[in-house]
């Protein structure tokens, strides 16, 4: 039987879960979730530079310029076209442009750290950004989050809604991270690690990473649940 894909909310090593993860078992719904009666993105416009986090200010952000590309597919392999993909991340120094981030690393006036795009007909997305830095958090003594980019995928099927984080291969912080390790099966964790690609690397310009995303099928019901009993 396949290991469950999603990490359990009740993960004591992740301290913030203590007062927030529900204690009672999840109930199973007898029916599938409804589809939207109109396309999700009706009336939503995405700016031509919204996918390029390096061109949202007067100057260029500091850091290692990278691209992140991939396809969003469902479990059956069908492309998820027209999905809204939103990303947010720390700057190269490991600081978010958010008032609550108190890490004493410099803010970058040329980096907001947020981007969005719609997947194309093949389900593909593409972002241009800089590699985020690692940063400390207070989960446990001397705790540091591995470099990561937050991803949110919003299609017109409720079962496909996904919020996750993309990591970088070989990050020495990964084996110590309670969020990455909340999935007990190493093969499941690896699905969150982007592949560096020479083909996607542009000479004299940017390093290319590739990361595919798989969401539930359109008709997924709560009972069709990744092999979980």
């Amino acid at each position, binding site marked *: 039987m396949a290991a469950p894909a999603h*990490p359990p909310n009740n993960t004591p090593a992740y301290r913030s879960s203590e*007062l*927030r993860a529900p204690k009672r078992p999840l*109930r199973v719904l007898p029916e599938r979730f409804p589809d939207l009666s109109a396309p999700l993105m009706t009336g939503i416009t995405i700016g031509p530079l919204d996918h390029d986090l390096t061109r949202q200010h007067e100057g260029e952000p500091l850091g290692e310029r990278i691209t992140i590309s991939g396809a969003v597919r469902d*479990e059956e392999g069908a492309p998820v076209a027209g999905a*809204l993909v939103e990303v947010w991340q720390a700057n190269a120094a490991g600081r978010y442009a958010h008032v609550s981030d108190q890490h004493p690393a410099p803010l970058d006036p040329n980096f907001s750290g947020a981007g969005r795009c719609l997947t194309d007909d093949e389900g593909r997305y593409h972002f241009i950004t800089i590699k985020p830095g690692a940063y400390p958090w207070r989960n446990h003594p001397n705790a540091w989050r591995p470099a990561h980019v937050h991803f949110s995928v919003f299609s017109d099927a*409720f079962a496909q809604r996904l919020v996750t984080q993309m990591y970088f291969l070989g990050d020495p912080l990964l084996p110590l991270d309670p969020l990455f390790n909340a999935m007990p099966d190493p093969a499941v964790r690896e699905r969150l690690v982007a592949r560096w690609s020479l083909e996607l690397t542009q000479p004299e310009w940017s390093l290319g990473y590739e990361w595919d995303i798989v*969401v539930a099928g359109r008709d997924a019901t709560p009972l069709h649940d990744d092999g979980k009993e």
Partner: protein
Amino acid sequence: MTLPLTPSQTVGPFFAIGIGPTIGTHVVAEGSPGAVRISGQVLDGDGQPVRDALVETWQPEGVARSATDDEGQFAVVAIKPSGATTGAPHIDVSVFARGLLTRLVTRLYFPGEVANETDLVLQSLTPEERTTLVAAADGAGLRFDIHLQGTRETVFFDR
């Protein structure tokens, strides 16, 4: 072909910088026929407000999302779903927050609906559990508090 699902991770405390204006707080315009304001508080196991939660509502008519404020309050403007759904009218609700590795899914039902008495999901619950899913009248709108833990823990569903 069956591809392995990409695992979920927490939305974290800083999602506000990435959750842009693309999907807002309104399924329908405020003041339009049938528009109902739905607000509520997200509370943790100590009864404290969850100030960094993201609440999304989902129904055939559309979606809305609202980040909670310093009091843990969210607010959206939606409409009572008509037609297509089975059972009593309801809105599916997702909750994301720091501390939650995977989204929580719950349902909002409307108060005073005759169909609530025969809704299979509601009737499968104890009366105490049922009260966590039925919104309360709140002036001209509805109030739907979400208790992540505790004696009034909201009923959450498998995704």
